[in-house]
């Protein structure tokens, strides 16, 4: 589980990321913007599951918190869209931390079930009568498309792409700093050897709830960006399926490295489109088959495959 900053991968990728919006159709720019947003969410999940060993099936709820925070602030209070991001992040962090406090007494599958309950409840809470003046009920909220600053020679889609790219870069840097430092060692120790970790003086409950909070924060920021990019939120966007989708993306991408977040996001964005093109009758079956193939052929995720391949090349060299 090497977490060094692999410049040989990052430099070309960063270059591509910067050029991409200028060579693509604008709807494809939107697709890649969604990839960036998904990768932020998956990075949060990887911190939680890959590094800390906790399983959440309820991150769709934090995604909804972020999305509705952005939408309500923009629509109701006229807050500029960029200013909604820190608020969404903070709310996500607090909500995740508070949910984490009692829930983290639960281990393994019990935690997964508790978080799953959160995912089940989310659409109903969003539809609730008492919240309707803010959430718009089942109809949701429609937002205005943010315009790029006038002095920049980019269109609205390209601008949103770069906003998301910038936020993602910040958050990935933060995640990388977390996992390679003292905190990272503590949270992985809790995953690998909980008893030894505690006996060495690591406050397991504290680190677990903080990790849960940080993970929820990433998801909430992703949710806020998605609301800004699609200019629409409604309870139906945050059904149970969303949380499962995040989980699938994380596992396929690879839980043990942050690169898995990007790969998982590409998978979630493009494989369903591919499945739809192959079969209108049963796109679910095609998606399922690809998924099973991935899990069988790459048990450590797509990111894990890179490690396996470099290892093979090294052996060949000997």
């Amino acid at each position, binding site marked *: 589980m090497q977490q060094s900053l*692999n410049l*040989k*991968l*990052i*430099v*070309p*990728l960063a*270059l*591509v990321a910067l*050029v*991409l919006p200028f*060579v*693509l*159709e*604008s*709807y*494809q720019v*939107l*697709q*890649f913007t*969604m990839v960036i947003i998904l990768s932020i969410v998956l990075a949060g999940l990887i911190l939680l599951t890959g590094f800390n060993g906790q399983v959440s099936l309820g991150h769709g709820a934090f995604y909804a918190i972020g999305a509705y925070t952005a939408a309500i602030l923009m629509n109701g209070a006229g807050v500029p869209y960029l200013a909604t991001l820190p608020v969404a992040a903070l709310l996500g962090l607090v909500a995740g931390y508070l949910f984490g406090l009692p829930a983290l007494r639960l281990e393994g599958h019990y935690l997964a079930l508790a978080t799953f309950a959160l995912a*089940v409840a989310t659409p*109903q809470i969003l*539809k609730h009568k008492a919240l309707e003046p803010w959430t718009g*009920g*089942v*109809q*949701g909220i*429609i937002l205005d498309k943010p315009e790029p600053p006038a002095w920049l020679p980019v269109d609205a889609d390209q601008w949103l792409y770069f906003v998301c790219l910038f936020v993602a870069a910040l958050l990935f840097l933060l995640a990388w700093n977390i996992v390679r430092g003292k905190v990272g060692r503590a949270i992985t120790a809790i995953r690998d050897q909980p008893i030894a970790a505690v006996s060495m003086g690591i406050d397991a409950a504290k680190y677990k709830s903080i990790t849960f909070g940080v993970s929820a924060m990433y998801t909430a920021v992703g949710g806020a960006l*998605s609301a800004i990019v*699609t*200019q*629409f*939120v*409604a*309870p*139906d*966007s945050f*059904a*149970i*399926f*969303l949380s499962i989708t995040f989980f699938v993306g994380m596992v396929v991408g690879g839980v043990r490295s942050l690169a898995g977040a990007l790969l998982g996001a590409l998978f979630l964005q493009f494989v*369903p*489109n591919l*499945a*739809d093109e192959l079969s*209108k*009758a049963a*796109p*679910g079956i095609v*998606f399922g088959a690809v998924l099973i193939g991935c899990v069988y052929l790459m048990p450590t995720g797509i990111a894990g495959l*890179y490690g396996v*391949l*470099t290892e093979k*090349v*090294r052996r060949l*060299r000997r």
Partner: protein
Amino acid sequence: MRVAFQWLTGIAVASTVLLSGASSALAQKKSSVGASDTEIRIGQTMPYSGPASALSTLGRLHTAYFEMINEQGGINGRKIKFISLDDGFSPPKAVEQTRRLVEQEKVLLMFAPYGTATSAAVRKYLNSKKVPQLFVVAGGAMWGDYKNYPWTMGWMPRYEIESRIHADFILKNRPNAKIAIIYQNDDFGKELARGLREGLGDRAASMIVKEVSYEVTDATVDSQVATLKESGADVLLSYTFPRFSAQVIRRVYDIGWKPLLILSQTSLSVVNVLTPAGLEKSKGVYAAQYVKDPSDPAWANDPHLAEFRAWMAKYYPSGDINDSSNLFGYALVKTMVEVLRKAGDDLTHENIMKSAAALDMEIGVLVPGIRIKTGPEDFYPVEQMHLMNFDGKSWHLTGELVDGTRLK
């Protein structure tokens, strides 16, 4: 060697992403607005995957219908290129796919996109691009807002029309009724319940004794039915989807409650709802409807349904003939073809909307007498419904055809 491999991988990944993007950008052809002398391009988003995938039969039926049109030489000599994409019932995905259809596939219009949230998510975008969003498959009042969204039109009777007809019926026949309502907690159930309250007017507060809701993800509504019985109501309105309607009918009968039961038009199928509930238990239920039920023996010899059955057998044999979604989709696509025929050779966005807003036609699979009518200030194609009563074998039309707009 290892270092070189890593650099190589990085560059390979980078160039693959770039190339795949660039090649698809280069590959697409330029055409004006989705119509030429030989082709009309039509887009659609449909929940082929996800929680609403059962309803994607609409998209498959439409694909089959346009194939038949092309076999017969197209419309005004133009073949239809129909592109129906999966949105998984997710609004963000619907935005992405709709933009792909408009920006890359260059469709002339969007036809029968399914779902309230998915269609609401793209309405503003389509209107800003002036791309017609025709015959949205959702029943909210929002789909006929010609002032704010002149490029968007619904098709089916909006929910409130149906429940206003129910209210009118109750006021006339059971003026002293005590009313209970069970409704699905979404736009469908809520708008029906609202329409009923509006239809009852100032009597709503005294007549409605109990309202309960359920979620579409619930397993049963047994406890809700028990609660409603306790209220002492003698009229029950069931604003529920088919599976729950069958449960309501059975439960009401089994606990010995005998209210006047009124169902929503989603749940009239003799084969799919009333038979599972029990035909004897369903005896006496009421509903307002606008399409014929293909499984109702009352229409066994109806020539229009015979034509529909023959069409299904030939062009869409994998579809379920008793699934009322198919009949509904059939009526929708006939309306679409009529709009394109009327538009003739002037296939601009403006003229498409003009033709869509000048409809006056009958479609045989609708309840007799119903006309599909639109105007520059009327973006609601179907606004009439007929009350029906079930006698234990089949539905019978009762009273007259009601124009929902005439009710207060």
